[in-house]
């Protein structure tokens, strides 16, 4: 599908020259009593260090796609076809769908880390922030000494602008923004090559949201990981993404550079989405709310 979509000509785009993640024809079904195809033959290529926005209304399958990439889906969700290829920066290619057991476990977070929708609930309420951060190292870097581990955790927190002392705090002692920062710190712990962010700022107010986004943008330019940023907030994506994929009913209806998508949307749905956000300067009441019905069920 990517091939048919317009990209700005000129120099070859990053995702074609040096892809880090290639998703081809991925299909995911919820095999409940009524089978729901939540992701329908989706193909996506993520360039190294690229920010790819994934936009779409609730229930369009964007979270399911994200979980499908990292093999986090639970029954009744089943990946029915397609492939997910990960091209490591060390030069080898990993077929994510073929990973099993410990291989899959070590692949997760090491290569692709995630920041989840409900950051408020992503931290275990009865474990200290330190223990939850250290868990990553004890799992993936078992030979790391205790002192080094502690030091790393402190550095990670400071990198996202949270005081080192907060390591000893419990999640309920942190504000929502701080918790999300802790989650981002945790996602960066192993220097992953891809970070999937599933609506990481949805539960936060706009001021904190802005700070977090700035943090993510800064960290990405420092560390060079690629980001799949999932949200229903298209204007936000326009601002931070290199390319944006618009998803609807499990299909990617349009994929283009952010600017192209904004200025020359091709698909009607994209136009509707863009039109459904009020503009500061336009005429009063001039946007459409009716986006039509969806058959994909509400997912996660």
């Amino acid at each position, binding site marked *: 599908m990517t091939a048919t979509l317009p990209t700005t000509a000129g120099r070859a785009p990053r995702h074609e020259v040096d892809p880090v993640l290639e998703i081809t024809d991925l299909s995911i079904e919820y095999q409940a009593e009524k089978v729901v195809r939540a992701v329908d033959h989706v193909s996506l290529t993520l360039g190294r260090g690229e920010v790819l926005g994934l936009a779409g209304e609730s229930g369009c399958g964007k979270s399911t796609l994200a979980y499908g990439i*990292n093999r*986090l889906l639970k029954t009744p969700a089943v990946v029915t076809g397609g492939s997910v290829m990960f091209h490591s920066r060390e030069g080898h290619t990993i077929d994510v769908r073929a990973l099993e057991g410990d291989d*899959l*476990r*070590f*692949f*997760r*977070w*090491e290569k692709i*880390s*995630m920041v*989840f*929708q*409900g950051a408020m*609930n*992503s*931290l*275990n*309420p*009865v*474990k*200290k922030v330190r223990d939850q951060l250290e*868990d*990553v190292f004890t*799992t*993936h870097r078992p030979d790391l000494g205790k002192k080094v581990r502690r030091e790393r955790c402190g550095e990670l927190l400071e990198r996202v602008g949270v005081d080192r002392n907060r390591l000893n705090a*419990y999640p*309920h002692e942190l504000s929502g923004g701080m918790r999300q920062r802790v*989650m981002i710190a*945790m996602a960066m712990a192993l220097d992953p090559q891809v970070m999937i962010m599933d609506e990481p700022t949805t539960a936060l107010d706009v001021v904190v949201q802005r700070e977090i986004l700035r943090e993510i943008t800064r960290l990405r330019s420092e560390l060079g990981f690629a980001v799949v940023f999932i949200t229903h907030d298209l204007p936000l994506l326009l601002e931070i993404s290199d390319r944006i994929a618009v998803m609807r009913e499990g299909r990617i209806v349009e994929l283009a550079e952010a600017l192209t998508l904004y200025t020359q949307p091709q698909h009607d749905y994209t136009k509707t989405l863009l039109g459904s956000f009020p503009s500061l300067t336009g005429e009063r009441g001039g946007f459409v709310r009716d986006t039509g019905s969806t058959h994909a069920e509400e997912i996660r």
Partner: protein
Amino acid sequence: MRFVLQKLGFYAVALWAAVTLDFLIPRLMPGNPVDQLVSKLAQKGQVTPETRRAIELLLGADLDQPLWQQYLGFWGQIARGDLGRSVAYFPASVSDMIGQTLPWTLGLIGLSTIISFLLGVGLGTFAGWKRGSWVDNLIPSLTMLQSVPYFWLALILLYVFGLILGVSPLNGGYDPWNTFPGWNWAFIQSVIYYGTLPAITIVVSSVGGWMLGMRNMMVSTLSEDYILTAEAKGIHPRRIMRAYAARNAVLPSVAGFAISLGFVVAGSIVAEVVFSYPGIGNMLLQAVNSNDYALMQGIFLVITLSVLGANLLVDLLYGVIDPRTRARS
């Protein structure tokens, strides 16, 4: 530290209130229990003035003293461990009788409560983790065993294992003919032999509840976001089960465990009567049957203390295992 002191303070007040009620209630009762007891004692033999005095002191019938002095005296007695003399087991003192029976109860009921809790929580963890497995399918039959009246279940098991199969003794806590109480192997062996069937009946009749509760908490904890995060982090499934899911799911069970620990002393009556076990529950029944007020009062005091003590212990423990409950200063 502040949290601990607050809790200790609260329990000190609760203890004071309980003991004061223990002191006041006999005084508020109509009639004179001293005469009743003395006439009862007189049937068995001569009543010494010392006994009468002890009963008077304990029940507050000593009208020469003002109430506050009696109250202080009562506290002094408790502090010295002097709870008066038993009527039913005359001339043994109440504290001696309690000292004799309490270890049996703590050993049998306490141990089987702990075993039942650990077993139930362990099985429940697995049942919740692997839903639909054989462990999960065990739950309906175990909860059915719990809904069966305990005395009936115990009698049936006693009948089958004690009488028909003959693999278990019919009553008592140890073999009084061939062994002598003390720290010798023969006695300990005999205690284990005699205690196994009662313990099994208690565990069988209570394990289902623990298991069901733990299993359901596991299921709801497993759908929490932090479990998904832990999975995405690549943490070993066994570690997720223990450190993330079971760790959080066990919290309500711990609170329930506190309550049942507190009632180990009080709730042992049926089990001990069915198996004629020499514990405190059996003794309480004897005390009630023979109107032994002093003994009853002593046992109630022990029950109060054990309920308070178990609750304090778990309150403090809960503060450790669930940081959210710690009061912020």
